[in-house]
């Protein structure tokens, strides 16, 4: 029986289906002061699937039936859309209500038009929309969203099951806000991203030392220590910026388990190189090569945040500058402190080797976890 049923599916690929899958159309106008108005057109067929409209089950949706279900429909759709407003330093959830119901027709049938009002409590420089309508019932559904600031038409974006969230910024000064927002995100990420910090620190442990006669010896001058540090940090920055950009532009795409596992392995190798530096003579080369992998990790974070509609370049720039700033902060705290204690046996004989062994242990656990998560 199953065989017969499945054979029915055969000719599917040679058929062009209707061209339009399910879409809803959401337009939001943002006024100064943060009041919102707008409309959300949702196909009656989709509302029937999500909530149920055809009460007498006669396969016809009448205006009376639609009106009768209005409260349930509004509850349902508004619970599946979250709008968050940001200005230069605050973030607020916006309220949203439907205060009118009309009907419109698009090429694939009749749509309910919900007239929306809302308030964000601040003059937003960007809105972040999180859209969840219908995905549990129709995985191909999309929300086509446009946010207009004042009278400026916005750029429509499509939100889908795989891409549910999007930040849409006001143009002009909004670009700077995007820059600032993503700069903060970049700083935040490097400061909470243990694996990146650990990798960087591991490479920098011996920046104030020099390997001579089978042991770590203190470097004599600050200048030498700074040059080594600069070399490592620059190499790391160049390559991770490169892959961050390539991945964000969609030119490189690796599965996240692979990237995350590889990052864990780079951390472990970095620590290993502190224990056996004779096998890793040029540390900046290691930073250069492994930076490629860490850049892909940054890109995954950035794509989770959702790229701002029109300004990929600004987003990337902001995020990258944030990462570099956070990195510089770590280096500026660590290297001078290490320089000061570089002559102590505690640093050379205990801190560097034991710290490195501990890092290898942590990195191994990460690597195993991340790899096994994929299998």
């Amino acid at each position, binding site marked *: 029986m199953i065989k017969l049923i499945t054979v029915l599916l055969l000719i599917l*690929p040679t058929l062009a289906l209707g*061209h339009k899958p399910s879409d809803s159309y959401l337009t939001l106008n943002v006024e100064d002061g943060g009041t919102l108005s707008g409309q959300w057109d949702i196909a009656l067929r989709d509302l029937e699937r999500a909530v149920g409209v055809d009460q007498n089950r006669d396969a016809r949706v009448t205006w009376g039936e639609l009106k009768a279900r209005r409260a349930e429909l509004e509850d349902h759709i508004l619970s599946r859309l979250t709008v968050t407003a940001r200005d230069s330093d605050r973030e607020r959830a916006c309220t949203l209500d439907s205060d009118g119901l009309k009907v*419109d027709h698009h090429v694939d049938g009749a749509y309910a038009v919900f007239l929306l009002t809302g308030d964000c409590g601040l003059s937003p420089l960007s809105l972040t929309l999180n859209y969840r309508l219908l995905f549990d019932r129709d*995985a191909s559904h999309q929300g086509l969203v446009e946010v207009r600031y004042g009278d400026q038409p916005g750029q429509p974006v499509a939100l889908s099951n795989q891409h549910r969230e999007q930040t849409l910024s006001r143009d002009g000064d909004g670009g700077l806000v995007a820059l600032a927002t993503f700069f903060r995100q970049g700083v935040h990420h490097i400061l909470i991203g243990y694996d990146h910090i650990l990798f960087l620190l591991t490479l920098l442990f011996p920046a104030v030392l020099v390997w001579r006669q089978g042991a770590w010896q203190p470097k004599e001058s600050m200048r030498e220590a700074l040059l080594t540090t600069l070399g490592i940090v620059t190499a790391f920055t160049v390559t991770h910026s490169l892959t961050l950009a390539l991945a964000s532009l969609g030119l490189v795409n690796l599965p996240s388990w692979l990237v995350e596992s590889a990052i864990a392995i780079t951390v472990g190798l970095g620590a290993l190189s502190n224990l056996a530096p004779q096998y890793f003579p040029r540390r900046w080369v290691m930073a250069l090569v492994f930076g490629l992998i860490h850049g892909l990790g940054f890109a995954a974070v950035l794509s989770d945040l959702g790229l701002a509609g029109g300004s990929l370049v600004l987003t990337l720039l902001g995020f990258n500058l944030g990462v570099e700033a956070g990195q510089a902060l770590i280096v500026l705290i660590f290297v001078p402190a290490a320089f000061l204690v570089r002559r102590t046996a505690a640093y050379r004989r205990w801190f560097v080797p034991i710290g490195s062994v501990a890092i290898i242990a942590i990195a191994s656990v990460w690597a195993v976890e991340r790899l096994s998560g994929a299998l």
Partner: protein
Amino acid sequence: MPMTTSCRATTKGRGILQQLRRLALPGLFLFVGGAFGNPAVAAPYTPESDDQVLQRLPTPSVLDGADALQEKLADDPRDRDSAEQLARLYIQAARREGDPRYLGYASATLSPWLQASDAPPSVLVLAATIAQGEHRFTQARHQLREALAQNPRLGQGWLTLAVITQVQGQYEESLQACRRAATLVPTAAALTCQASVLALNGGLEPAYARLSRYADGAGDVADNVAVWMQTRLAEMAWQKGDLDAARAHIERGRELDREDRYLRHLYADFLLAESRPDAAIDVLEDYVDQDGALLRLAIAGIAAGDRRADRWAQQFRDRMAAAQRSAEYAHLRELARFTLVVEDNPTEALALARANWRTQKEPADMHIYLAAARAAGEPGAADEVRTFIAEHGVQDSRLAPFLNNGTEAGS
């Protein structure tokens, strides 16, 4: 010699442009987004009467069992058997109604299993079928490879792989997949699978002879397989230029299932080729909600001088604009045909046909590419099709006129 060079250069340039256009989704939005949310297109209104019917909901008969399955799933969300059955019903509904919404329903039904890292092979095969329907061929093949590596006894998986590879012109792979399916699916399906590939790969006459002999003698074939068999036979007969046989196969198929959309479109194309546009309109006019029907109605309408022709063309244009606003895939073959025949814009049609050729290589794709190239006054632009046809020994009476002209013009 300089001619050839400049011709290649333009070809290449246009190819890149085409790529850019398809890649730059945001650009597309801007381009066709002029009407977005624009109240001038149609203003929202308040209906006057409560009884006014706003929307008829489609109730495809294949979905009769869907509610019961839905309830079973609600009781036990881990009931994979019911989920697969329900997804199958949705895929069938998509195929019959030509409505991609049902594919979205099907993948939502399967998503609890698809999201797991160890999706069961039978679920992957269904997911691949959905991906195919949405023209995501690469993903479909990837899913099929994974499923068949886990369980090589999934006949449906091999058949689906055979169909995709055939559409993409990889006949060796397609034939192998048919052979792997042979012992796992009903004989009629296995034979149809093989004959379809062979008929495009230099073996048209024997493939047709064998399959039609089988069809005449076979008693106990399920209706759906029989329709598929007659459809393929009709296509092969048409390839051979035997129009009477093609008509007979179409009629036999339609006796088995009047509602088969693919066969209906084939029939309409056949009537159009026989210069009987009025008959084509009769066949299709009740299906204006389906894009494939609308495309052919627009073409037939012009040929027949029907006064609804403009309306059909406009409807098709509107649908395309709406689809481009959201869809990640476009049905370039249909769009190219519309652009050539209805819009009478061979240059644009040629660019579309060329872009379409990258993913689809069925005779219909060859035909539109060759026709657009000739209409655009540069028959040499479709030389990659001629090379493909020569390499694989594709035989098709509909293509013959272009091939002769092309060679003359090219040499």
